[in-house]
């Protein structure tokens, strides 16, 4: 991996920023504000970081200058922005927001705005949108095209999973979760998967919709007896079996859903402990 940003010569870094500043003002000005200079420095650091942390084994050789690493990183950011566009079009070909307003706004309205306004050269570190629909992975440490790339990947996995079920079935689960679910800022998979946990644990086919009082009591008992760790293991096991059944061992999707196991276990256990399993196991 990389030399580390501190290893680059300060004057090399400044020289890259100066050149970038000249391009930024395109000969119209001889000066910029501190804030703009800082933003351009962040743009340079973003590209360098992109090269140093790229997945395909890029190696920063000791003799490489900051300028060389920056240019290589810039090309990677450019490629990623292109990939984001491709992935977005692929996603939108079969996209369904299931009536969830914040998912629709973020994906169908927000991301095109990002694609239109993203500035690879002068502000690659800017994410430009707030990515309001909550995904099951923490991407707060990412910014710019990295964040949007990862976000689209996650939404694609979610769509892949939800697409395995009848859309009216998904919408009905959401409606039973909250009558006004369209305006919630919650993850759809999280709600659907919690519901599915009930079916799997009771060995109840999805076609048999709804849970009887006995079934809810039984589920309550199961989760009362399990420790948090055991509950997580149980949920993790059922997600894996679900993946094998529905998504043909999609490892990335499985890993993505694994990120929600802890939250699901906590939510199910607390729902059961306050005597309202019907708020978790909906349909």
């Amino acid at each position: 991996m990389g030399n580390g940003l501190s290893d680059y010569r300060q004057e090399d870094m400044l020289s890259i920023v100066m050149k970038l500043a000249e391009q930024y003002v395109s000969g119209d000005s001889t000066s910029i504000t501190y804030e703009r200079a800082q933003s351009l420095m962040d743009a340079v650091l973003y590209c360098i970081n992109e090269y140093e942390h790229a997945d395909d084994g890029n190696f920063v050789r000791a003799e490489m200058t900051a300028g060389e690493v920056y240019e290589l990183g810039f090309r990677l950011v450019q490629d990623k922005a292109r990939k984001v566009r491709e992935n977005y079009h692929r996603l939108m070909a079969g996209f369904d927001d299931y009536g969830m307003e914040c998912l629709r706004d973020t994906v169908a309205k927000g991301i095109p705005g990002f694609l239109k306004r993203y500035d690879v050269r002068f502000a690659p570190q800017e994410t430009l949108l707030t990515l309001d629909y909550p995904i099951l992975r923490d991407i707060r440490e990412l910014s710019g095209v990295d964040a949007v790339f990862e976000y689209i990947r996650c939404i694609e996995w979610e769509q892949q999973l939800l697409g395995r079920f009848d859309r009216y079935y998904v919408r009905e689960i959401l409606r039973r979760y909250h009558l006004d679910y369209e305006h919630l800022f919650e993850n759809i998979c999280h709600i659907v998967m919690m519901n599915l946990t009930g079916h799997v644990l009771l060995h109840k086919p999805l076609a048999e919709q709804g849970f009887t009082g006995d079934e809810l009591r039984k589920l309550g008992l199961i989760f009362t007896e399990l420790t948090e760790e055991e509950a997580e293991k149980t949920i993790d096991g059922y997600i894996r079996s679900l993946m094998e059944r529905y998504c043909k061992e999609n490892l990335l999707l499985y890993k993505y859903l694994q990120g929600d196991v802890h939250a699901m276990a906590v939510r199910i256990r607390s729902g059961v402990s306050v005597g309202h399993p019907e708020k978790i196991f909906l349909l």
Partner: protein
Amino acid sequence: MGEIKTTGNWLEAMTQQNQIQQLLAANQYTEQFGLVLSEQDAKMLVRERMETLKRERRVEFGKSILPAIIYAFCDSAYIHQSHYVETLIRLQEMFFMYKNEMDDELTDDELLNFMKEQFETVCYGDLDYLEGTCLEIFSEAVRAGYRDYCRSEGKGDFRKIDIVTRWDRELFETVLKDLE
């Protein structure tokens, strides 16, 4: 992300020396108007430039604006050798201050054209008036969305937005007649 740190002293010294040379080279052109900078003057201007940039929180990359100010203003009838350096210092301060005030909307040329035109016509060489009235009114207009200067490169713009009533020759003559 990282912060910009000050560069090494040698780099700063080299930049300063380069700027002093640029200012002294301008003498070849300005001496026809009776304006010349000594090496001491040039050093002082470069020092003042750094102070102004720091105060206005701006960074100059490569070229300095000072030579452009010199070439734009040196033919003015209102600048004399006796206050040449002080005038350049003030013009430089105003330039950077109003670059910020106008949110960098104007290019260097547009701002310099505007400053020079007002200095010659409306201000009659009064730097305080240029700063406190002309640039102030213009910057307010620019912040409010005025963009006609893009077509005119900053020339002939002030009269469109000027709201100040100034000396009126006709009124003066009328009053004079009344006094008689």
